[in-house]
């Protein structure tokens, strides 16, 4: 399942997509949890009893601001969460 967490507003579309098929049985030892400086990722048991990562609810409404320090203007050349997720489950829409 591709789970899209986020929103669209007047300034753009801000979604983090998590491919749960790649996330289940994580090969990166849940590195996303530590990689995100805002600690936005959390491991939950989904409706199909699989342990997967999701974005904490309060962050889903503020992604544009929460992620800004990791974007190129913040000095990063690649996003820490995407780099940490070696199975390639995490994508940003912006």
């Amino acid at each position, binding site marked *: *399942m591709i789970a899209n967490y986020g929103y*669209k*507003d007047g300034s753009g579309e801000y979604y983090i997509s998590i491919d749960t098929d790649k996330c289940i049985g994580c090969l990166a030892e849940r590195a996303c949890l530590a990689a995100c400086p805002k600690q936005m990722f959390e491991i939950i048991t989904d*409706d*199909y009893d699989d342990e997967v990562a999701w974005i904490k609810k309060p962050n*889903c409404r503020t992604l544009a601001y929460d992620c800004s320090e990791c974007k190129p203007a913040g000095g990063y050349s690649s996003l820490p969460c995407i780099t940490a997720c070696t199975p390639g489950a995490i994508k940003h*829409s912006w």
Partner: protein
Amino acid sequence: MITAGIDMGSRSVKVVLLEELKVDGAPALKYGVKKVHIMMPGDLDQDVAADKAYDDALTAAGLKRGDIKAVFATGAGRKQVGFATEGITEMTAGAKGAVFMYPQARTVVDVGAEEGRGMKTDAEGRAIDFAGNEKCAAGAGSFAEAMSRALQMTLKEFGDASLKSDKTIPMNAQCTVFAESEVVSLIHASTPKNDIAKAVLDAVASRVCAMVRRVGIEGEVVLIGGMVHNAGFVQSLKASMGVDTISLPDMPEYISALGCALIAAERQH
């Protein structure tokens, strides 16, 4: 075996009691809806409202709590349903219920009072892709309701009025608060009510459509949730999504509760 699905929405509580039927010679299990019940909580706390709605549904069906094998809850307030055996997300419940009603459905659009969402589903009714809007109410029913009040119309009149307009007036604001001020400006500019109604519903539809496009539109499209009752919105959504047909269940507000009851039944085997 009877299971219950409770959809604890932001405006109303929906209860579906589902009975598993034994049909000789049938290749798969059959289910029949035993009772549906909807309740507006009003001033009641969510946990009290859930209790009352559930008890009312059981009374209407002539059942007791002990007759129910499992109770699954969904919706924004699902955590308040203390007696529920398990909580299910709106995406999983909605997809399951929609595919039960329309087996060919692969795209499910759910527009309720406070939130809209789009899901892509497989043949078993399992959500395989979903997108919602966690931030903004401008793509949901309460926005349409607030705007109908501003035009001093009932929701039904509001939807019907929109169908009488062929004008396209863009609403540029992405936020409910600013959109409301745009509506006030249109009223002051003596714009006909029909055109304003269509502009509002077009705006809601375009926001919902943006979410659905994230997951992709394929197969039969089913719209569930209370906004199905708004004919103007359905028309606007069709135009926005570029589809000729959208399947509309008879009792759209119960589909998520139905999905919940179905999942509860399946998990008892």
